[in-house]
């Protein structure tokens, strides 16, 4: 947790110092490429785990239902929070 916070704030400091330079305008592309690589690595770790791949079939359905339910619940909570805390249109 603290590593993530440290990196985030260190990056913000670095970005502030480098603002206006061309390199900072390419961070969007860099973020996209890094996410792609991260997901490829994660996917390969799942694919190479034979026992996990076998269990995908039996537990996959339950996992999808739980994921859909929890995502729906949090979306609803987000809508309620937006209305109660931040005002109907967003920020109060």
């Amino acid at each position, binding site marked *: 947790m603290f590593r993530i916070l440290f990196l985030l704030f260190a*990056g913000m400091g670095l970005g502030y110092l480098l603002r206006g330079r061309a390199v900072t305008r390419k961070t969007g592309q860099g973020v*996209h490429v*890094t*996410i792609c690589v991260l997901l490829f690595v994660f996917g390969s770790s799942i*694919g190479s785990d034979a026992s*996990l791949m076998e269990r995908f079939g039996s537990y996959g359905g339950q996992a999808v239902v739980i994921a859909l339910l*929890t995502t729906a*619940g949090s979306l*609803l909570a987000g809508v*309620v929070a937006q209305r109660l805390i931040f005002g109907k249109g967003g920020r109060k």
Partner: protein
Amino acid sequence: MKGNLVVFVCFLAGIVFGAVGITPQWLHHPDLPVVLLSALILQVGVGLGADDSLRSMVRTLRPRMFLLPLFTIVGTLLFAALFALLPGCWTLPQCLALGSGFGYYSLSSVMIAHVGSASFGPELAAELATVALLANVVREMLSLFCLPLFARWCGSVAPISAAGINSMDVCLPGIVRCSPQSTYLVPLAIVHGLALEVCVPLLITLFCRV
């Protein structure tokens, strides 16, 4: 949408390459995801720091932002409890433990496997941990790929709730991209992710010991 498709194809390609066994061994090094995630966070930080609207973003940090994680926890757990109503599925505390990952698949599955083995037995805890891993991966994927849809249907705050713990890292660029004019969303997403990260181990321990 094209960007999200590319991301999804990369994930699928990873699974196929891993299953076929043609990925190099160094790709499975346990430190590699940590290094990549660190690089991602650093780049997100650089992008935020270089943004001219950073000062106004910091000024938007408000105490009421800390209420959003509470809403997310309540909404998520209420809907996770519905899973216990399905016949032949898990008990209520087990369903609540499954929902308490908030997309944090690595920590939640490991914690359920360890803490749950004392309460449910090692075999059941391992099964529950596998479902937790998959469910939280699916939740992360749903958040990552459907952020624009969530923002269109439910407003700018709901995607942060749906992203769960990933609102502060993997989903942060998408959240910003969906509502670029709302500078308060970045501190809100970070506060939300941090608060949930603290709550995940606490909630899983609680529900695995009930």
